[in-house]
């Protein structure tokens, strides 16, 4: 056990477990999605394969593998395969910086023959790659020259996540901005009109909502001055008045709603599913895909949903934070714990919170009708981007006005209840201003034009149309 701990860093296990867990969850999310769709529409849903249809994902997966992976004659052969592969690859890569379980601290004791010059050097040699040595190692030497033995006790910490990168959440934004190519290249390579239109629409949709997505992330980043998701989560793991957890949902509710809307749009799901509007575009950008290449598109949609929901949990719902899961080392840093069990429990809590956000995704998908292209674009460019910009300014101004007068904030950098109230009031004021401003701004022009297609109900004799129209 100790050999494994020293020689195989924890992130190797976390990477494989997180990858496997996400793929397994994706398979069952598809079943859950179908069940929720069925319940919404007063049906039963899949219930033939196994009890309650629980083996359905396995059947689906086998079907993906066993069906024919067909490529139309007119499609671009290389790009046709590259598109789904790229999309899935990007989604696998994007889970790297999710903060599953705070910081793990380990104290170890090793025995070395002979006396040693530098205890720190020996301790560093026996620290897993990626972990940071804490403090100075303690050395105890026993015995004489020939039979001398040194006992070194040292402590190291590592982040209980796959990678601890400086750019943190910006890494996820950067990686997800590549996922657009899977859609647009797949749509183009299919050489199908439906696919092409679906790809174009999805691209316009995704890039438009990347802007408010980045701005609402910045609203949280500016409060803590860190891009590191683990730091942002730790900063939320304290309480106001001893009971209310200091989650950002309470300080930045508007940012949360903007973020939630953006991740819906990024996932190309209803009500933002103009890319695969069945009634118009058959299957959208994956009309021509079949078997595993289609499967990769399908899996990547759900994997992307998990990643973005996890980021949402880390930013707004305190990540792994839940009463009882605090650290046992340093009260100022509740993320540090010496217990592996606590780390695993935190990862589970994080995952359950993520699943709840995904539940919102499914609820929304089966409740709301699809938006039109111009409605989606208006929402992004006329409403959400200006709102997010103003929200960033308001947050910064509130911090500037109240921060210097708040001793606790100055000392620790944590958001105190006074600042939380100030931010909440700022949010409310902004909401009022937006509501007032929306009434003052000119309405979007009606773009739902009645094209007089021959034989349609708008194709009436010219006399029936008023001359002034």
């Amino acid at each position, binding site marked *: 056990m100790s*050999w494994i701990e*020293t*020689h*195989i*860093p924890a992130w190797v296990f976390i990477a494989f477990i997180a990858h496997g867990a996400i793929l397994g969850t994706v398979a069952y999310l598809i079943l859950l999605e179908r069940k929720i769709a069925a319940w919404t529409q007063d049906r039963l849903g899949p219930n033939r394969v196994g009890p309650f249809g629980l083996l359905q994902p396995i059947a689906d997966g086998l079907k993906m593998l066993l069906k024919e992976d067909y490529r139309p004659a007119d499609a*671009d052969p*290389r*790009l046709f395969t*590259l598109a789904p592969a790229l999309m899935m690859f990007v989604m696998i890569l994007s889970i790297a910086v999710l903060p599953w379980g705070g910081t793990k601290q380990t104290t170890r004791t*090793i025995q*070395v023959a002979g006396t040693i010059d530098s205890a720190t050097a*020996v301790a*560093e*040699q*026996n*620290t*897993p*790659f990626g*972990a940071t040595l804490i403090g100075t190692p303690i050395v105890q030497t026993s015995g004489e020259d020939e039979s001398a033995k040194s006992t070194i006790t040292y402590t190291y910490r590592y982040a209980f996540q796959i990678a601890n*990168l*400086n*750019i943190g959440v*910006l*890494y996820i*934004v*950067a*990686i997800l*901005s*590549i996922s*657009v*190519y899977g859609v*647009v*290249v797949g749509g*183009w390579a299919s050489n199908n*009109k439906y696919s*092409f*239109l679906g790809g*174009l629409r999805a*691209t316009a949709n995704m*890039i438009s909502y*990347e802007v408010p997505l980045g701005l609402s992330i910045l609203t949280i980043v500016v409060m803590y*001055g*860190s*891009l590191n998701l683990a730091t942002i989560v730790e900063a939320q793991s304290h309480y106001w008045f001893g009971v209310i957890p200091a989650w950002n949902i309470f300080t930045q509710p508007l940012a949360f709603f903007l973020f939630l809307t953006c991740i819906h749009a990024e996932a190309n799901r209803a009500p933002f599913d103009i890319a695969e509007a069945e009634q118009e575009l058959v299957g959208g950008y994956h009309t021509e895909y079949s078997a595993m290449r289609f499967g990769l598109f399908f899996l990547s949609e759900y994997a992307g949903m998990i990643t973005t929901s996890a980021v949402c949990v880390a930013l707004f719902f305190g990540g792994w934070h839940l009463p009882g899961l605090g650290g046992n080392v340093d009260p100022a840093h509740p993320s540090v714990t010496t217990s592996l069990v606590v780390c695993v429990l935190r990862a589970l809590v994080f995952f359950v919170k993520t699943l709840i956000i995904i539940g919102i995704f499914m609820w929304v998908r089966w409740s709301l009708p699809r938006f039109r*292209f111009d409605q989606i674009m208006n929402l992004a460019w006329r409403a959400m981007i200006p709102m997010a910009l103003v929200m960033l300014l308001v947050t910064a101004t509130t911090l500037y006005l109240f921060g210097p007068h708040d001793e606790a904030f100055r000392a620790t950098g944590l958001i105190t209840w006074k600042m939380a109230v100030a931010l909440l009031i700022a949010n409310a004021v902004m909401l009022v201003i937006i509501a007032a401003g929306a009434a003052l701004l000119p309405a979007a022009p009606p773009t739902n*034009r*009645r*094209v*007089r*297609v021959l034989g349609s109900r708008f194709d009436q004799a010219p006399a029936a149309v008023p001359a002034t129209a």
Partner: protein
Amino acid sequence: MSFSVLAQSDISDAANTATAVLFYLFAIMAGGSAICVAVSRNIVRTAVALLFTLTGVAGLYFLLNAEFLAAVQLVVYAGGTLILIIFGVMLTSKSPFSRFEAKLGEVVIAMSLACVLLFALVMGIVRTTFATDEFPTGNYPIDRLGQVLLGDYLVPFEVVSVLLLAVMIGAAYLAKGRRREGEEGAARSGSLSRQAREWS
């Protein structure tokens, strides 16, 4: 003491080997797909190959611990500029499948220009003495970048915003400048004409 595989003791060896391997991988990825960009005759494939060139360069930045620069490379170049290029390519060329058949004269001119550039680059690399000892290692947090950007380089930072203002106005003019309200209304009542001819 036990033999360590991935412990800190071998951080210099293992990480250096990994860095070297990754450097060559990313360099081959960037260079190889750059050759694809130049050689490929299908214009959309060219644009997709450019994606891999940009990503390879981002990987190189990543290896140099310039993570913010790598993220900017991905967000702005790979995620923004290239989308514009791909749309432009799809929009302007009437049939992107129509192949470029370069004339002999064009090939000769391009090759000679490339040779001159290659010669200049090789000479530059050969004649420069690189300070290998002072290779920057370690950690460059983004807040240090922020301190420098908003401290010593505050004026350029604000000038950038003026530049972006100009760019945005230019883009808005390009997008809608030529069409005046009246014409737009006329085009709108003309219903079928424009819409029916273009995919939307």
